[in-house]
């Protein structure tokens, strides 16, 4: 094996890829060769580092120098200064919110509070090389399971660990496996649910892109534990990099004899197949997902029978989320006690969150259960940008709710989030500030649900549509007395009478915003005002006395609604104004108010 004095890690996650990391990777190799350093320095393309905001990210080891927002033109300097002369390029180093230069990864606030189990290899290994995974104890847990443990012993470890499903429901994983093991059937199946549909969530994608073998290993372990020899990975087609890395990983694992026939010479067979989704959110629901793999419309079915009894092709089946699976090898290696020592009474271990929206450090993070939202948003996330006020944190995507300031100190776990009207969901965490209208956010999620409702059961198909119509009316300034009560009644009925999780949770965004931001609804309906200044129909653009009459707004107005002579205060004709906001964007003197 070749030994290198320095490793340059380039993030190859979707976000950094989009920001230009493939070119940087290529150019680093070219420049390193030019400098004659190719035997001393190795460039590695890894999975997601997590701090997407700072992408494209390049880390140079052994120093751990964290270069952020690297551009093509910076590559030569990194090679000639840092790699050749050991002079760190200060201007490219990551700077924290107070503009302090951070020299090492370990000093970045974003990483300090994290505990990485599911993400342990993301951003460290090359996901396209099985040897790197093996070097980090990869497939060791599978080896132990097959050669030293009986299936029931594995189940006991998973049960004792307290691991609960990370896809949203939070069902105890060990129990799910036990149900499937107890079924008497010659054919059973294992499914990995990688149909990550929540808008604003990208945890599963990052694990698949950064550490695909961990998922394969866990699936083989679960297959051995319940007696299945076949597994399916159902992954979104919108994730081309993840799919490609999974394909490479499966091929390599088969080559090494870690998948396929007679694994580790134990007589255990396990094969895997990738199935692509085709853009249907409801397929994240387990029964719908099964229908989709079978080749039908992705419509849920009533339960029972549960998938563990009658699942894929009517055989006992377990379905686990990507993040849940990524925890399994570590639990086997380190023991149930190690895992259950982290977290809260009812929720053990860690949770990965995708932090986005109005927050300084957007990206991916993994924290012990029980961390508070305040710690996530302010200590890890770096707070709200542009000096704006925090308004709400949205968890659980279209199934979850908005959490206001007063609940920011709630320690996050499955049960605490439910108790404040939201839910864990798969881990999307979107931060909103004073400029976001909560009625419109509720409308946004309902719009999504209406679009994605499969149409099988009437409460969801018709009920959510009626709720959306009311919300559309309210944001258009046509809300009437009684709308709030109607929304509440509809929401309650849809929740109790829908067939699957999608319908049952669809009213959550409305119910939680009604609970915490009722005043905004009332302002829209009674006062015909949008307090956040977002809803177009309720806004007027008005020129204030800061106007110097430069005429920039007049030029940019698409409807010629602005009048006024040079160097005189201008005026917007409200009848002609289409409220596009172009004038406000153009004005350099803050002379236009949105009221």
């Amino acid at each position, binding site marked *: 094996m070749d030994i290198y004095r320095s490793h340059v890690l380039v993030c190859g996650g*979707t*976000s950094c*890829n*989009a*920001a230009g990391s493939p070119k940087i990777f290529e150019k680093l190799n070219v420049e390193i060769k030019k400098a004659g350093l190719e035997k001393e320095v190795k460039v590695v393309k890894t999975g997601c580092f997590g701090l*997407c*905001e700072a*992408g494209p990210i390049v880390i140079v080891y052994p120093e751990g120098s964290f270069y952020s927002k690297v551009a093509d033109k910076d590559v030569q300097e990194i090679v000639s200064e840092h790699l050749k002369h050991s002079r760190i390029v200060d201007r490219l180093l990551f700077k924290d919110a107070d503009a302090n230069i951070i020299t090492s990864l370990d000093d970045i606030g974003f990483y300090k509070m994290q505990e990485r189990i599911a993400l342990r290899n993301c951003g460290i290994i090359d996901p396209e090389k099985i040897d790197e995974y093996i070097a980090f104890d990869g497939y060791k847990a599978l080896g132990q399971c097959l050669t030293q443990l009986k299936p029931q012993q594995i189940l006991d470890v998973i049960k004792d660990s307290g691991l609960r499903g990370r896809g949203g429901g939070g069902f105890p994983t060990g129990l799910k496996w036990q149900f499937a093991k107890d079924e008497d059937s010659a054919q059973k199946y294992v499914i990995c649910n990688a149909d*990550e*549909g*929540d*808008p*604003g*969530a*990208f945890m599963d*994608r990052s694990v698949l892109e950064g550490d695909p073998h961990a998922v394969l290993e866990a699936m083989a372990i679960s297959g051995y534990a319940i007696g299945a020899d076949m597994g399916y990975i159902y992954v979104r*087609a*919108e*994730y*081309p990099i993840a799919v490609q890395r999974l394909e490479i990983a499966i091929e390599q694992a088969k080559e090494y004899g870690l998948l396929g026939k007679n694994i580790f010479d134990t007589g255990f067979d396990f094969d895997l*197949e990738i*199935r*692509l*989704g*085709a*853009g*249907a*959110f409801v397929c994240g629901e387990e029964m719908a997902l099964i229908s*989709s*793999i*079978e*080749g*039908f*419309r*992705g419509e849920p079915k009533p339960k029972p029978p549960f998938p563990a009894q009658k699942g894929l*092709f009517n055989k006992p089946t377990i379905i686990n989320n990507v993040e849940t699976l990524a925890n399994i090898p570590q639990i086997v290696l380190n023991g149930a006690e190690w895992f259950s020592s982290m977290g809260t009474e009812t929720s053990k271990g860690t949770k990965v969150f*995708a932090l*986005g*929206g*109005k927050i300084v450090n*957007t*990206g991916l993070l993994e924290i012990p259960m029980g961390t508070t939202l305040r710690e996530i948003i302010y200590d890890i996330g770096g707070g709200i940008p542009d000096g704006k006020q925090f308004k709400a944190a*949205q968890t659980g*995507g279209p199934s979850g709710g908005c959490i206001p300031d007063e609940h920011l100190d709630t320690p996050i776990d499955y049960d605490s989030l439910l108790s404040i009207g939201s839910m864990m969901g798969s881990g*999307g965490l*979107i931060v*909103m500030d004073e400029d*976001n209208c909560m009625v419109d*956010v509720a409308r*946004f*999620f309902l719009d*999504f649900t209406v679009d994605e409702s*499969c149409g099988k059961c009437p409460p969801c198909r018709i009920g959510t549509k009626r709720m959306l119509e009311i919300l559309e009316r309210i944001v258009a300034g046509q809300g009437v007395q009684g709308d709030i009560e109607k929304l509440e009644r509809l929401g309650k009925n849809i929740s109790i009478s829908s067939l699957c999780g999608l319908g049952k949770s669809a009213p959550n965004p409305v119910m939680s915003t009604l609970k915490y931001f009722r005043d905004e609804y009332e302002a829209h309906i009674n006062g015909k005002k949008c307090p956040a200044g977002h809803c177009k129909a309720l806004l007027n653009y008005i020129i204030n006395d800061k106007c110097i009459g430069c005429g920039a707004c007049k030029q940019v107005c698409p409807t010629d609604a602005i009048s006024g002579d040079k160097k005189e205060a201008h005026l917007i004709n409200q009848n002609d104004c289409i409220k*596009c*906001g172009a004038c406000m*964007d153009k004005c350099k003197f803050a002379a236009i108010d949105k009221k």
Partner: protein
Amino acid sequence: MIQVDQKLMREELISFIEEQKKKKGPLMPVMQKAQELFGALTIDVQELIASELDIPMSDVYGVATFYSQFSLEPKGEHIVSVCMGTACYVKNIEKIMDKLVDVLGVEPGETTPDNKFTLEPTRCLGCCGLAPVIMVDDQVYGRLAPSDVAGIIVGY
């Protein structure tokens, strides 16, 4: 020439179907392959799939109309996908969409008359760190302002 292509593509699809038939639940992979080959699942393509897999046409049509990635009509040369995820939404993707509608002269979901662009609202693209984001074919453009839009489109 086009007819020759059509014939070759049909043959390729038929041999793919033969391969998939050995597996359980072949319909989705077959339809994904067909869409990749033909660009859309037109009625005659669906009929071919139904007869080769020996299943009712209604099943094929049911699946084709259920999933948003299947299209019954051919799309433009370039697909402009506009992310409608939450992170992009709270960062004003609407303004980017308005600008695209303006620049391309078509409404969301439509294709330009010269068949060059199809404007598509899409589910979360998962690059929330770069919000607001659009994707033209496989190329992602992030941290956008409405003023960036025209420049991106001109490049195609």
